[in-house]
C-alpha cells in the first residue's frame, strides 16, 4: 500500500507539475486557438493529478502532510500544497521552464508519448482506480500527443526560424527524456505486483513512435547524453532541478498562507 501510494504520487506529480507549467501559457499563447488548446491540456492533466492524488492518499494516508487540527483542506490539496519541493516525485522533464513555444511542444510531445504508453499498460492494473484513470487518460493524452505532434511537424517544416527553434528545443529537452524510462525501485515493485507499470518496458515502443514523428518532420534523432543523476537520485527520488522550488513556491503561496482556509 505504501508502494502504491508512492507510485500514484509519481504519476500525479508528473501531471500536476506539467499542468502548472502549461497553465503559464494562459493569455500568452501564439494564437487564441493555442491558448485554448494549452489550457485544455493543462485541465486534463490537472484532472488526472487530482484522481491520482486522491488515490495516493487513500492507499497510504501517511503520505498526506499533517495540517493543524480541524483544517478543512482535503487530502488532494494537502498533497499538492503542503509538501515541500523535495517531496515531489515527478520526473525533471516536466519542471523545465516553458521556454518558447517550441520547447513547450517538445516537452509535451516527449512527455505525452511516454505517458500514453504507460497508461496503455496501466489499464490492466489490478488497482481499479488506476485502471479507470488510465482508461480515461488515454483519450486525453492521445489528443495531447496529436496536438504536440502536429505542431512539431509544422514548426519543423515551417520557416527557417521555426526549424532552428525546434532543433534547439529538442537539444534542450531530450537530455531529460531518459529519466522517464528509468525504473525506480517503487515502479519495479508495483509492476511486479501487477498494479503499476515499469516504464523501461515501454521505452522501445515510445522510441518507435517518436522516430516516426522525427522522420516525418525531417528532424534528426537527438543524440545528447542524458542529464546526470545526483548520487544516483533523480526526480522520482525527490532530486529536482532548481526550477521546482520556484514552481512549487508560486503554486502553494496562497494555500499555505491559509492552512485553515476553505476555498
Amino acid at each position: 500500500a505504501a508502494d502504491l501510494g508512492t507510485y500514484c504520487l509519481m504519476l500525479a506529480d508528473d501531471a500536476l507539475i506539467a499542468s502548472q507549467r502549461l497553465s503559464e501559457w494562459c493569455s500568452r499563447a501564439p494564437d487564441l486557438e493555442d491558448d485554448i488548446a494549452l489550457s485544455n491540456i493543462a485541465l486534463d492533466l490537472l484532472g488526472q493529478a487530482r484522481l491520482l492524488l486522491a488515490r495516493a492518499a487513500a492507499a497510504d494516508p501517511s503520505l498526506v502532510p499533517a495540517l493543524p487540527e480541524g483544517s478543512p483542506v482535503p487530502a488532494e490539496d494537502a498533497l499538492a500544497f503542503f509538501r515541500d519541493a523535495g517531496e515531489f516525485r515527478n520526473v525533471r522533464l516536466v519542471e523545465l521552464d516553458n521556454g518558447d513555444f517550441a520547447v513547450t511542444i517538445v516537452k509535451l510531445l516527449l512527455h505525452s508519448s511516454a505517458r500514453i504508453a504507460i497508461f496503455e499498460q496501466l489499464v490492466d492494473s489490478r488497482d481499479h482506480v488506476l485502471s479507470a484513470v488510465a482508461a480515461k487518460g488515454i483519450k486525453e493524452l492521445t489528443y495531447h500527443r496529436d496536438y504536440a505532434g502536429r505542431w512539431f511537424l509544422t514548426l519543423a517544416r515551417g520557416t527557417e526560424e521555426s526549424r532552428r527553434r525546434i532543433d534547439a528545443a529538442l537539444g534542450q529537452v531530450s537530455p531529460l527524456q531518459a529519466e522517464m524510462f528509468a525504473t525506480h525501485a517503487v515502479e519495479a515493485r508495483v509492476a511486479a505486483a501487477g498494479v503499476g507499470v515499469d516504464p523501461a518496458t515501454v521505452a522501445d515502443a515510445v522510441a518507435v513512435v517518436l522516430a516516426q514523428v522525427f522522420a516525418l518532420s525531417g528532424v534528426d534523432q537527438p543524440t545528447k547524453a542524458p542529464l546526470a543523476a545526483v548520487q544516483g537520485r533523480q526526480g522520482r527520488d525527490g532530486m529536482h532541478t532548481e526550477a521546482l522550488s520556484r514552481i512549487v513556491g508560486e503554486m502553494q503561496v496562497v494555500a499555505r498562507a491559509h492552512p485553515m482556509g476553505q476555498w
Partner: protein
Amino acid sequence: AELLAEFEATISRNDRIEPRDWMPDGYRKTLVRQVAQHAHSEIIGMQPEGNWIGRAPSLRRKAILLAKVQDEAGHGLYLYSACETLGVSRGQLTEMLIEGRQKYSSIFNYPTLSYADVGTIGWLVDGAAICNQVPLCRTSFGPYGRAMIRICKEESFHQRQGYELLMTMMRGTDEQRAMVQESVNRFWWPALMMFGPPDDESPNSAQSMAWGIKRNTNDDLRQRFVDMSMPQAEALGVTFPDPDLRWNEERQAHDFGQPDWDEFMQVVKGNGPCNTQRIAHRRAAHEDGAWVREAATAYAAHQVSLEGA
C-alpha cells in the same frame, strides 16, 4: 433608399440583420467598434484572473479558474468571428487593440490583488457584464446576437461560480472574510462604472438604441444591477462601500451614490492602474507568437503546393 427602408423595416420588426444584408455605413462602423471592443474585453479580461491560476489555493478552484479563463478566450474567438463577418480580420483587430486604437472594458485596468478577486470578478464584474449583455442577445445584428446568447449562458455560470467561491470563503477564517470584503470594496465602484457614464453624458447611446444595437440606457442597467446585487451581498454577509446606498420605498428601488467619474475618465484615457501593463502583456504575447503563426502559414502553403503538384 429602398435598401435603407428595408433595413429599417427589419430593425423595427425586431428581426436580425445578417452579414450579407445591406446595412448603413454608420451601423456597420458602430457594430465593428462595439463587437471588437467586446471581443478585446474578453481577451484582455483573461489577464486579471489569469494572474491567479498559478496560485489558486485548491486544485478544484484551479480547475474552475482555468476553465473560466479558457471560456473567455472562447468568447473572444466567437466575437472576433462575428466581427470578421463585418469585413475586419482578427489580425487587424489585434493590431488596433495593441496600438490603443480600439478600447476594451475599463474594469480590466484594475489590478487583482488577492484570490478573493477571482470570486468578486465572477460575482460583480461578470454580473454587471450580464446585465449589459442579456439585452444584446436580442441585438439586431444576427452573428452578434447569436454569439451573445452563448456567451451569456456561460457568463451566468461563471457568475454563480464566483459567488460560490465568495460564499465558501465567507464560511472560512476571519482572514478570508476580510479578504472578501476588501475585494468587494475595491471592485464595487469599478463595477458600477461598467455601465458607462450617466445617460445625460453618453453621446452615442441614442443612435445605438435606434439601430437596435443597444437596448437599454446606462442608468437603467446600473439601477437594475444595484437592485440585483443588494440581496446577494446580504446573503453573503458583505457590504458595499457606499454610504448613500439604501432602499427607497417610494421608487421601489435602491438609491445609491455615484462612482468617481474622474477616475473613470483617467482609466478610459489610458492612465488607469493597469492599462499599460495589460496592453504590454497582449503585445508581448502577439509578438512572441509571430514566428509560430508564420511557421503555420508557411507550412500550410507548403502543403497546398504539395497537393497541387
